């Protein structure tokens, strides 16, 4: 079985799981599942850039911003485009921006690269202030995305359908990324990450590789932003703050840098940890001053605890525990 077939089958299996899961939970959980889906896309893109290619980006929120506004503007001004065309164009627009950023990033290292991408995250949303008529200023844009096929209207609730669309897109992208990471281009990315000089000596074009990595990663960010706009019907600068870029980074570290499974754990944590902390504070009936800051504090505490206990993130931790478990079993079998 080829790698692509195997990944595609896994993807289909996962999609079937999502369809079953969304059919049994309440509509709001559908929204949360869809939210995990688009965060997964963004974190997966980031983990490809950082984990596989060794470049850092503090500015992925900016690519989500581009994706969300692309979808918003297309829905408002070109209403005849189907939603999937809007999503593709959102990914393409962010990919283009990523290639431009990558061209600059290819010349920068470590803290300088972090600084440049940070500037992007802080600066880009301010463009809405420059063009308030087209981009809605601080208010941003509000719209309704029609996507439910007429055949399904009435039988499938809107939120469930949205979760399906987000996850179909996310899984398609993950299959693509899994192949990229495991294939020839993945080896090239890792070679550049590990040692640029030897990679160059082996005939790899360093700059081009880095730009391509940035392009691919930004494309994921744009798609995530597009999916967010598709799901929530909003694109506003207040949603794409530096905090968003940093929380994507935190989710990546929490899940495990460089692993697509890690991206899944990170995205799950991003959605559900604050939710649980919020439920907990409400159950404990704490004062508002404590309650309003607890979800953020809990997320921070979880991040610190995971990094201390499993330096490789949640995915690394799971792998290690599994390995230990199996080794124990093997030794058991070997010495009856």
């Amino acid at each position: 079985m080829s790698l692509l077939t195997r990944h595609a089958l896994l993807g289909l299996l996962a999609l079937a799981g999502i369809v079953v899961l969304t059919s049994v939970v309440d509509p709001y959980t559908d929204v949360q599942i869809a939210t995990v889906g688009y965060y997964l896309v963004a974190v997966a893109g980031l983990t490809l850039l950082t984990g596989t290619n060794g470049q850092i980006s503090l500015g992925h929120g900016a690519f989500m911003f581009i994706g969300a506004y692309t979808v918003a503007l297309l829905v408002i001004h070109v209403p005849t485009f189907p939603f999937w065309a809007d999503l593709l164009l959102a990914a393409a627009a962010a990919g283009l921006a990523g290639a431009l950023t990558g061209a600059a990033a290819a010349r920068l290292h470590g803290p300088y690269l972090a600084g440049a991408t940070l500037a992007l995250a802080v600066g880009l949303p301010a463009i809405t202030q420059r063009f308030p008529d087209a981009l809605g200023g601080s208010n941003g844009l509000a719209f309704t995305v029609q996507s439910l096929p007429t055949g399904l209207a009435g039988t499938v609730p809107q939120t469930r359908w949205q979760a399906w669309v987000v996850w179909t897109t996310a899984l398609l992208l993950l299959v693509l990324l899994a192949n990229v990471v495991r294939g020839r281009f993945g080896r090239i990315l890792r070679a550049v990450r590990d040692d640029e000089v030897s990679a160059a000596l082996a005939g790899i074009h360093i700059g081009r590789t880095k730009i391509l990595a940035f392009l691919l990663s930004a494309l994921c960010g744009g798609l995530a932003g597009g999916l967010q706009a598709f799901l929530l019907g909003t694109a506003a600068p207040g949603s794409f703050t530096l905090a968003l870029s940093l929380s994507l980074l935190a989710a990546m570290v929490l899940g495990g840098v460089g692993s697509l499974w890690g991206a899944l754990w990170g995205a799950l944590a991003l959605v559900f940890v604050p939710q649980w902390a919020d439920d907990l504070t409400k159950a404990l009936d704490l004062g508002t001053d404590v309650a309003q800051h607890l979800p953020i504090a809990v997320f921070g505490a979880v991040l610190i605890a995971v990094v201390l206990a499993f330096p490789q993130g949640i995915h690394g931790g799971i792998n290690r525990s599994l390995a230990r478990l199996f080794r124990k079993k093997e030794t058991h079998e070997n010495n009856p």
Partner: protein
Amino acid sequence: MRTTRKALAAAIAASLLLASCSGAGEPSGGGGAAAGDAAPGVTDDRVVIGTHQPLTGPAAPGYSRISVAAKAMYDYLNDAGGINGRKIDYRVEDDGYNPTRTVEVVKQLVLQDQVFAIVGGLGTPTHSKVVDYLNSEGVPDLLVSSGALAWDDPAKSPMTFGFQVDYAREGKIQGKYIAEHLAGKKVGLLFQNDDIGRDAQQGLDRYVKDSVVSRQGYDPANTDVLPQLSALKDSGAQVVVCSCVPAFTALAILTAAKLGFHPQFVVSSIGADPVTLTGLLADFAKRGGAEVSPAALLNGLIGTGYLPDVGQTDDPWIALFKKVHDKYIPDEPLTNTVAFGMAQAYTFAQALKLAGRDLTRGKLVDAMASGKIKGPGLTPFGFSKESHSGYTGAYVFKINPDTSTTVIQPPAVTDREGGDITPAPTERVTPQDIGLG
């Protein structure tokens, strides 16, 4: 391998095409759920309502206290037996003034908590993202905590009602006051770069368009207003109209002081609560490593308002708010922001009472539009079948050296277009007249 890939691509393309036959931005054929007889969140002894508030984020300073005050008022009314035999279960969700979070938490309130209505959702950039959703789901969306004109659109948003005086009416009243009492002075405008700024300028420009020398917008995500204040200073503005939320009123005042720029500030009701501003000025200055005298900075500031000031202890509404405050939230400073939250909660409770024991969403909306809602404000509500606009005017006040306030122009009412500004009717109802708790 190659055939698998082709087949996969074909399958993907086919599924994508099947999935969507019509454009993403085209209106769908089916209408939204009608409000009518639905009554989710209502049981024999309880009614669940929800709100989205900025408990964290850029608008939290000041505004995070509104829901605390509203909760106190609901507790007071519940302890007095509730409304029509039902206790009000008030669910507050934090959206951090982030529109994405607003959509998420409002969906949570509607889909998971199954709220009967959304009451007092706060913020223009935030709430504008959920108006279509709430109206298409048929959820009453009452007393929005923002003065944007967008909430008053009964044809398009039949479920949505405003609360505050809208920014256009308020801008007209500010503009006329400046044209009459600060005639000949150069005017600079500082505003939040969304509907607040747009609507306020629409009102101001009817009176002071020719005196305006500079227009500066700020984005709530960026707390540095030095460029805007420098531009205002350079333009020679002698009066600065600040259509700002409390945090940015405070930032503007501090930044101006730092620049040695001392214009006459005229601040909209949303950002002109003296007690809240005093706290914010001291807090922000301390974080910046400076000691300031908030009272000195605020002295002489002109503001507009539509609710009685908490300093007016002889006002029957302020007496009620003080009573509720002292019993339920005694540790909280009693500010105009607290009074806002209580006034809003009381107004909702009044609509709930009017809707009757046999409660449905349709009846609640009818009660709001009945014209019978009278509130704590010094100007009347505009609620009717044709208008969903909240308070219809404002008074003008000045902050004294001890941060108390003096009314310098009595309440006046007007419309959102080109109509005249006329004195507000003086008769008001008292809490005893309405008799909820």
